[in-house]
């Protein structure tokens, strides 16, 4: 039976941190601590005494971690950044995915390799999810813009909804633009002209 392992996840995104936490628990970490407001990192790290630290590369506090692992009396066991010498691609993949892991000396390398792999996969999945979400939000915004422009056209010309939409669409086609771009210019013009 292995001794219980403790992990620290430093991530400003609560959703992504939760996904990483779940992965770490599946990998056998009985205690996972999440820190998002990391100003207290200096004080907390000694109390937590983690076996592994997973940090989001968008977090500037990575430099604080590096110093602590180097000199601080608060860190009880030597911890180093995980780099698999036999697999340079994994380090590259981790950096591109935006995650870095620091592990306590003596933790089994193959085990750590799997954990880092899990983090990379989950960080990538999260960015995809975020991309989808922002595209979906963009589509929703476009829809609202078109509806508002349509209402203005209906009022100005005294035409019904379908005719107004058809007018927007033909104008867009003639000008080789997207309907939302035409809609935006109508809204801008209406703001200018009151």
């Amino acid at each position, binding site marked *: 039976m292995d001794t219980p392992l403790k992990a620290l996840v430093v991530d400003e995104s609560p959703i992504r941190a939760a996904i990483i936490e779940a992965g770490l628990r599946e990998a056998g970490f009985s205690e996972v601590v999440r820190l998002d407001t990391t*100003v*207290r990192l*200096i*004080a907390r790290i000694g109390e937590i005494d983690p076996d592994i630290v997973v940090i989001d*590369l*968008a*977090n*500037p*506090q*990575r*430099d*604080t*971690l*590096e*110093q*602590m*692992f*180097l*000199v*601080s009396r608060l860190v009880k066991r030597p911890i*180093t*950044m995980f*780099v698999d010498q036999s697999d*340079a691609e994994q*380090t*590259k993949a981790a*950096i*591109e995915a935006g995650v*870095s892991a*620091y592990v306590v000396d003596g933790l089994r390398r193959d085990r750590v390799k799997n954990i880092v792999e899990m983090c990379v996969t989950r960080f990538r999945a999260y960015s995809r999810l975020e991309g989808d979400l922002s595209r979906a939000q963009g589509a929703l915004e476009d829809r609202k813009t078109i509806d508002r422009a349509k209402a203005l056209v209906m009022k100005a010309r005294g035409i019904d909804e379908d005719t107004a939409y058809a007018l927007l669409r033909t104008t867009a086609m003639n000008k080789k633009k997207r309907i939302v771009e035409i809609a935006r210019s109508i809204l801008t013009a209406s703001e200018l002209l009151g």
Partner: protein
Amino acid sequence: MIEVRVGYLPLTDAASLIVAADFGFAEREGLKIDLQRDVSWANLRDKLIVGHIEAAHLLAPLAIATTLGVGQLRSSLRAIYVLNANGTAITLSTALAAELAAMRPGALASYSETALALGELVERRRKAGERSLSFASVFPFSSHTYLLRRFFALGGIDPAADVEIVVVPPPYMVDCIDKGLIDGFCVGSPWNSLAVDQGKGVIAALGCELAPDGVEKVLAVPEGSPLINGPAGSKLLRALGAASHYISQPENIARVSRALAAPERFDMSEEVIARTLSGDIVLDPAGRRRRAEGFIRFEGRGLNRPDPATGSLVFGEMVAAGQIKATAEGAKLASRVFTPDVYDRAFR
């Protein structure tokens, strides 16, 4: 058009990279500089090593530490251009500054007076059994760490025993002062001035006073980089040379500050950047000022040419700080990090 990806942190001393990219100096050399803003020195180091970027705005001592394998990751780096000298300052929390001024009139009149007063306060606190004061640097291997140590030495303070030196990223410095986690810090421009403007700090010492002509940031590349031997390196350095000269003309400060302040660059106040570029430093929230010629310097006196002697001197600072053992091999490797070859080819 050759494209070079360069990583940087939002600090005044990245100015020549931004000016070279945005003011047409790179283009004139047939070069496109793709600038990538980052958030930590560790990120820049790693991205440089794995090839995510081809060159980086880097702390001179970090290029040496990485080459020697102290700290995390070991990989040979080369400094092919010195971006600037100085630009840093030591700031005390307003509470600590007030305590020193109350203890000794004139304690804030000069950096040496401040250091002496601080030494006295440290001694008093030790006798009273109070917690030791804590100061932040931006990275273990940085001029900031070594400047703090010099400042402490002037006050008879032993940095290893009497105070604590921690690392805090520049954007978090003021927050850490507010929460009482640190009592002062050493950071690059414009972060000291930002702390003063927010009413949270008093600038106690300028880097240019503690270490005149102190080499600050370098342009670092991996040892085997094509920028060392290929034509792109010369082009890049000539673009940087022209940019360094442009920034150094007082009449260009307004334009340069505006470019650095842009949302896609630093996303900061233009006025505060202009103040650091011109060396017109506001020292405390009450508005006390000091004009410091050469507060930050981008060219002149052979600054931009990497001098192997600088590498040896930085190695000495690392040894003095207890970060590495003194060895002839280490000193030799450190001096080799500062390689003037590319510079000499570009400007011959």
